[in-house]
Each structure stands twice: as C-alpha cells, then as structure tokens.
C-alpha cells in the first residue's frame, strides 16, 4: 500500500521513504554531461504557486529511448487523420502511411451505408527508388487522379514524408493543379517527420492547413442545428474510444449543440461550416490552441479551456459553458443534467474510491492527457505523484501566461506561423468587448490555460519527455500503483509488476470522457488495481525466492 509523507502545506516530502529531490538525483546520476545538462531542465520538483521554467518542446536527445513520434504523426496521425470523409494520401515510401492506418482509434460513424469511411483505407504513393531519384510529383498527381476516379471524394488531403521534403517535391502545387483538374478541394501538408522536435510541430502544421483549406468554406446554414441557440465547437478532442460521442451526447442533454469536434468523429462538411458557432471550447490545448486563436481572430469566436475527463472536471466544464451563454434555462438544465449524471455514477465512484483512495498514479503521455487524467484519478481519491508530457510546450506545464516569455528556437521557427486578420465580412464578436470585460472582471476566464503544474502537488516530480531510464527509476523507488502511458512503455512497466494504462489508445477500452466515461474509467482502474495476476508472480515452490530471481536450473 502507499506510503506518502507530506508536509503541512501538502507538499510531498517523501514517497516510499524517498524524497523527490533524492529521486531526481537518482534519475540524473551517471548521465553523459551533455545529456545531464539537458535532462536536468526537464525533471523538476513542482511548485504549483510559481511553476519553475521547464525545458519543454526541446530536441529529443539522440540515443535516449523516448516515446516521442514525429511531425507526420502529429499532423496526419493525430489532427487530420480522424476526418473520415476526406481521402488521405501519404506521399512517400509505404511505411508512414501503413503505420498511421487504423492505429489511433479515432472512431468514426458514417451516417448512411455505403458512405465512405476513408479511415478504413490506407493510401500512399508507395515511393520507390526512382521516384526518390527523379522526383515524385508526377506519381503524386497520378495517385490523386486515380483516387478521385475510384472514390469521388469531397476532398483529398496529401501528406509529405521525410524524403519528399528532401528531394523537393512541391506537393502544394500538385494539389492546386489537381484541385483545378478535378474540381474538388485538394490540399497538402508539409509535415515531414524531421520537422520540429516531436509530433507537436505536426499539430501546428495541421492547424494551419485545416484553417486555410477548410474552415469557413461553407456559410450555408448548418442544417438542423442552424436555429439552435447554443452552438459550440469542441477543439482538440479526437474521439479515441468514442469520447467525442459521449461529450456530444452530454452537451445535447444540456441543450448545447456541437457543430464540429475538431477532429474526432467529424465530417468535412461540419468543419467547413463550423465557423458559425458561438463558442469554441478546447480540450487538448497543445494540439489545437492555434486553431482557437485563429478562429477568434478571423471570426470573433471566443474560446476557453475545458476538460471532460473526470466527473468533477466535466461538471465544471459544463457549468462554464452554461455560464458563458448566461441563459437561465440552460444553466438550470445543465445543473439538472449534472445532478442526474453524478447520481448515476455515485455508487461506483464511491465503491472504487473506498478501495483505492490514497493510491499513487504517475502519468507520462501526450500533450494534455497527463494533466486531464489527474482529475479522473482525483475523482477516486488517487494521488498523482509524478507526471509529464511527451511533446507539450512550456505553456502546457506552466500556463499560458508564460507564452510571451517562450523563446522560439530554430526547430519551431521552421513551422509556419499564419498571419490572420479579422474576416472583413464574417468577423462577428460573439460577445461584445464590454460584456467580455465584465465577465472577466467577474472571474470568468477566456483564452485560458493554467497548465498542469498549478494543479499538481508541491514537490511532485514533473518530467518532460520521460526516458525509459527515468521511468524505471521512478517505478523502483516510488512504486506507483498505476502508470498511465503509451504502448511503447506499457509492457516494460507491466513486466515490473505495475499495471499500466495506455492513455493514448485506452488499451482499446473507453469511452472515458464525460460522466459515463468516468465511471468506465473508475471500473477499469479498479480492475487493474485489483487484478490477481500480480499475486501469482511467485510460484508456490519459490516461497522465499525473490521476485525475478532466476529459477533453479535442473538438467
């Protein structure tokens, strides 16, 4: 069971008898000098009151076993990939396309039978050596044409992989030509894997492309939702395990219509008309804050951060949305829904909490989940003793107020920063500057994100881009009861006898968002923490053989 000591102000003084600074030292011990320098900026004892400067969004150190992926993965895999009725073509050798085929669990539902779900298809130019030598533009153009002939999609999206950038294929010109020729929307993303320092650069590139090539294309009224009084978009929610559907259902119960979820369970048409919303709420700040900002600038749609992971967070987020609209009926209805939903999950929450309160979680994943899931663990009384992102920036740790102080380094400078102006015709502030100011004065925050650190305990360890070696130290020393991580770590962690929940893919479970999702998660955590498996590790004939000590060898 947990052994957590805290000081009077609630800071961790020691966990399993080891203080945070001692553990940090262990993690850094013996690293080559250059590596040590770097990593020491990325492993910090937390101070929620005034977060330290963390070395985030910096280059991954070569030779370190990292969880990070690449720009292509962030762009095609994370942000654009989920749009199921766009036809996606990866321009490059086969691998990049292959690995991003059906591996991210961003679920999609086609409304009628026979309507394309291109997520089931993996399309690539499968570049061969002669395309590398002689250029791949013609092949790409041919591929787009073939794809159009076969499937007649509404839009085609093209993704560049490493060699494409290096050999100088101009995918954007190929896309423009194709668009002209075929009369559909064809656009490209220069999301070569070597750009940036992680998948984060890919998110930015994706946001730029979605904004340029899709947002605002369609001003026609948005179908049955046109007259809905409260229309919002959810940004940065990718419908892993059906989360977006849960959130959508919940908001609908309250009386709020979601025009588009960027980009989980969404259609091309929803995206092109979603600039008609009254509000953008942001789930994954890291991957989509660009879009929120640009839509506000161009169309006047305000945004704020929400979190639908965890029952308490969900309630808070719902209330904030209702409060934004300020409609009494909406507020009342929202309170009713919250009461109902909380009641529905009360019993399981209490049960699971009773069994696992005080247990220790550690979360190393993504660019927002390492934060969001702390709330979910908190719902059942579990402490997050250490956490960190895989590819987040300083603002995700320290809060958006540090944005002005973030130095843009060479890697980030290569990523285009779109210049956006208010749309001369369509800019329409959803609330007047005065009203907004009044709300802010009353404590309502817009364009906000406080970051993870302010909500974590003092002296919890914050570790950016955690390496395999550091994770091992953490497990050996602080013995977390559960770790939230990704597929590449999962079995390492579990071989050490600690259950590990994948927080990218949810271990193929979910949904975990909203109230129903929270209950699912409580039960899943309960299952993992109650599993009998770990009790079986030592066979009965090794009563005093220590775990893992090699068995007797008998001829």
């Amino acid at each position, binding site marked *: 069971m947990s052994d957590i000591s805290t000081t009077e102000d609630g800071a961790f003084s020691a966990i399993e008898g080891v203080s945070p600074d001692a553990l940090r030292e262990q993690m850094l011990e013996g690293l*080559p000098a250059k590596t040590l320098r770097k990593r020491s900026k990325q492993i910090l004892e937390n101070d929620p009151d005034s977060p330290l400067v963390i070395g985030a969004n910096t*280059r991954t*150190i*070569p*030779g370190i*076993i*990292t969880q*990070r992926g*690449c720009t*292509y*993965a962030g762009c095609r895999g994370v942000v654009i990939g989920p749009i199921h009725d766009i036809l996606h*073509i990866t321009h*490059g*050798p*086969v*691998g*990049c*396309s*292959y*690995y*991003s*085929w059906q*591996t991210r669990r961003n679920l999609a539902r086609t409304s009628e039978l*026979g*309507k394309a*779900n*291109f997520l*089931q*298809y993996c399309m*690539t*130019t499968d570049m*061969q050596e002669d*395309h*590398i030598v002689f250029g791949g533009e013609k092949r790409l153009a*041919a*591929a787009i044409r*073939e*794809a159009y002939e*076969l*499937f007649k999609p509404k839009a085609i999206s093209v993704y560049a*992989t*490493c*060699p494409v950038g*290096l050999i100088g294929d101009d995918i954007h010109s190929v896309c423009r030509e194709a668009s002209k020729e075929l009369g559909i929307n064809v656009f490209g993303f220069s999301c070569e*894997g*070597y*750009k940036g320092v992680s*998948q984060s650069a890919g998110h930015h590139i994706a946001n730029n492309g979605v904004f340029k090539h899709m947002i605002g294309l369609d001003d026609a009224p948005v179908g049955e939702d046109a007259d809905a009084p409260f229309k919002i978009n959810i940004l940065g929610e990718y419908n892993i395990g059906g989360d977006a559907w849960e959130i959508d259902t919940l908001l609908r119960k309250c009386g709020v219509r979601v025009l588009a979820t960027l980009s989980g369970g969404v259609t091309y048409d929803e995206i092109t008309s979603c600039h008609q919303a009254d509000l953008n709420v942001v789930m994954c700040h890291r991957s989509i804050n660009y879009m929120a900002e640009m839509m506000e600038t161009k169309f006047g749609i305000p945004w704020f951060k929400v979190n639908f992971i965890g029952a308490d967070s969900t309630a808070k987020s719902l209330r904030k949305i209702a409060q934004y609209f300020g409609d009494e009926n909406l507020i009342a209805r929202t309170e009713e829904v919250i009461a109902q939903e909380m009641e529905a999950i009360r019993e399981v929450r209490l049960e699971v909490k009773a069994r696992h309160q005080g247990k220790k979680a550690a979360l190393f994943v993504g660019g927002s989940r390492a934060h969001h899931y702390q709330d979910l663990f908190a719902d059942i009384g579990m402490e997050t003793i250490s956490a960190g992102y895989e590819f987040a920036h300083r603002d995700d740790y320290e809060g958006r107020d540090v944005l002005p102080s973030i130095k843009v380094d060479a*890697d980030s400078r290569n990523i285009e920063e779109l210049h956006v102006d208010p749309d001369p015709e369509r800019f329409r502030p959803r609330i007047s500057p005065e009203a907004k100011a009044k709300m802010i004065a009353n404590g309502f925050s817009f364009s906000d994100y406080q970051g993870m650190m302010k909500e974590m305990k003092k002296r919890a360890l914050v570790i950016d881009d955690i390496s395999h*070696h550091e994770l091992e130290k953490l497990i050996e020393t602080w013995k977390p009861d559960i770790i939230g991580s*990704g*597929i*590449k770590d999962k*079995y*390492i962690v579990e*071989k*050490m*006898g600690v259950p590990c929940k994948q927080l990218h893919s949810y271990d193929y479970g979910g949904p975990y968002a909203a109230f129903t999702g929270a209950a699912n998660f409580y039960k899943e955590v309960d299952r993992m923490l109650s599993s009998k*498996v770990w009790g079986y590790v*030592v066979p009965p004939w090794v009563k005093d053989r220590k775990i893992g000590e090699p068995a007797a060898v008998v001829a």
Partner: protein
Amino acid sequence: MLDVTTAGVSERGALRINPAKTCQPIGAMYASLGIHSCMPHSHGSQGCCAYHRSHLTRHFKEPVAATTSSFTEGASVFGGLANLQQALVNIFSIYNPEVVAVHTTCLSEVIGDDIPTIIKKSRDEGKIPEGKTVIHANTPSFVGSNVTGYANMCTAFVTYLAEKTGESSDAVNIMPGWLDPSDMRELKRLADELGVKYTICPDTSDVLDLPQTGVYEMYPKGGTPIAEVKRMGDAVKTLALGEFTAYPPAQKLLDQCEVPFEKLDAPIGLANTDRYIDTLRRIAEVEVPASIDAERGRLLDVISDIGQYFHNVPVAIFGDPDVVIGMTRFAVELGLYPKYVFTGSPGKAFERKIAEILGDQYPDAVVRQTADLFELHERIKADPVKLLIGNTYGKFIGRAEGIPLVRFGFPVLDRVGHRLFPAVGYRGAMHLVEKISDALLDHRDETCPEEWFELVQ
C-alpha cells in the same frame, strides 16, 4: 465496412491502397532484437523508431527497446553524424548493450549518411567503448519492404561478425527467416530432439515472448550471443529457411566464410517441416527419433480426419512472401484451393515459387507480388473465397464480406495465438489445422440454416 470498394480490378499505376507490406527498418529492428544484448538503433527521425516500436509491441505485447538518432531539420540538412555519435555515447553509457545495430531510414538514406564511416570515426574517437560492437545495415524504405530490411540486417550480422577460423564448429547454422519467437523456439526444439548441434541466428525467443516475472530486463536471456554469431563462419552448413528473409545472409556467409547453404522454405506444414527435419538429419548425420515420427503421424492423422471440410475450399493467403510461400504449400496439402496468393513485397521469386507449388492444379489461382489488400478485396468481391489466411489487416475484408480470417504472419494485432503457439513444425501445423477447421466450422455453424446445424462433425 470498406464500403467504397467495388468488384473487379481497378487500374492503378501510382496509388497504393491498403498495403500488404511495410518499410524496411521495422524488419531490421526485429532482426536486431534476435541478437543477445543488442540495442536496435534507428538512424533517422524519431517517428520511424516510434512507429516500429509501437507496431512490434502491438504484435508481441512485449517491451521493444530501441533508440533513435532523433533527426531534426538541421540534421537533415547537415547530416546525421553528430546525432549518431551522440546517440552512441548515450546508448552505451545509459543502456550498456553489447551491440548496437544501426539501421537507416529513408531520411538518412536520402541525405546519404555513410554509416560505416561514422562508426569508424566514433570508434576512433573513443565514443564506442572497448569490447562493444556497432554494426549497421542500409534499409532504405523506398526499396523492397519490411522483409528486405530483415534480410539486410541478418546479412549485416554476417558481414560484421561472422569469422572463419578454419576450425569447424561441427554446428549447423539455422537462419530462420522472419518468424515469430514461438516459431524459433519450435525450430530449436525440433533440432534438439534430433540431437543436432546448431546455431540459430537471429533468435527472438526469450526476447519477445518473455514470462511475467515481476522484473524487467532490457536484455533478457534470449537472442543469439555474439560469440555464436561469430562462430557461424565455422559451421558445416547453413539452412536458410526462406527465399526473402534467410537466403541473403546465407549467401553472404558463403561468400565471406565459404559456408555452404541449403535453401528451404519456411517449415510450415507437413512437407516443409519434413524437409527441415530431413535436411538437418542429412547434414548432421543423425537418426530421426520416434518421437518426431509420432508427432508427424499425429499431424497426418488429423489432416486425414478433417480433410473433408477443407477440400477445395477457396482461400486467399496474403502477407510476407516467405510465410505465404510456406502456408501455400500447406494449404495444398490440406486440400484447400489457394485462389489468391498475395504479397505486397516485390520479388519475382515469389510468383515463381508459388507457381511451382500450385502446378497446374489451380488454373484460376491469382498470384501477385507487389500487390495490395485493396486489389485482393476487389477480386474477392468479384469472385469470393471462403477463408482468409493472413495478418490482422485482413479482418476488414473478412467483416465486409463475411469471410472468416485465420490470423497468420505479421502483424497480428488483435489476438494472442501467435505468441503462444508456433506456426512451424508439425505442432505449428496442428495449430493451423485447428485454427482453420475452427474457422470453417464455426462459420458454418453460425450461418447454416437451422436444419443443417449438427452435433457431430
């Protein structure tokens, strides 16, 4: 499911849809894991390494440690020397492997990094500790496929490590081709049962099929030890179990150390396993024990008993070429009708070998290399089969067309059998017989009219 696919073969010259292959580096990474205390290193953008580790992990449900040069845009312009050197320093100081096996990516290939030179420089500069080994294979993603990468890395083992001392080791080299750990374990069991002295390389058993012990070891007990890899140059003969994944290193070993080889198909099914056993027996001059005869006889017995359910059942077999070749021969032995035999990997040898196996008994069989699952699906829509044998990606076709899928080959991302039971050897064949017969009979039991639903089958 796959609703926009239609019957008939579309004309495509540039667009690959639903590939039945992937890129070289993953093969190289997998092969590297078959050397004891080896850290696979991906020289390129970290995304490649992440994808390969994820994919291998999903197949094996085991830790897959590998490092990357984590190229940024700068490295892509100025070359990967600094990145690789820094990586080597970090790897040896933090993870301390015996060997680092570097493979390239399309990125480092396009910019033209000269790995041998970087390795030499690193050694000269003391960045590779004494007694440690760094090897490399060129694995450009725009050439060949995942199986090429596997073969290239296996060839690198030979190139860098195998030595001919002139003193025979009396051992047979077994180059298993790209098989699962459970398969390699079974190949060893059979060789042990025969009493043959052998070196198997690579060997991913006890690396990627580890017990739950409560302890994580980055370098578990499995994998071919470096010393044994070196001794391969002194072996009496090499068995190369697969045209695409085992023949190239065997050829290299012949060229480099004059070790002759015999090229066999992957020992999947009766005759292929017979050939494995018989070749080992001949080379090592041992007698085949009764226990192997009995296993074989039990396989034959069940093939005979269950034959009526397999007879002339049209089947699509797809995946990596060597295992598809092995499986196709077994399908013929079982009485199945191989209607589509597909691989995404390029190589005329595939078509030639399948043609040999099929003879003129299956006039309308469609055999395709450099093909994809979209074409397979188009063809199945036009002229269906009753069974799919291949990797997990086939499940979408299966669901779309209501055809059962027997999971076989790489990758299997959604079931566990491949981790527990081999596909090679007589036991592997029994397991396949079980899987195939369950698939066919379950399907029949689920779909037949009630009056044909029967107790005894």
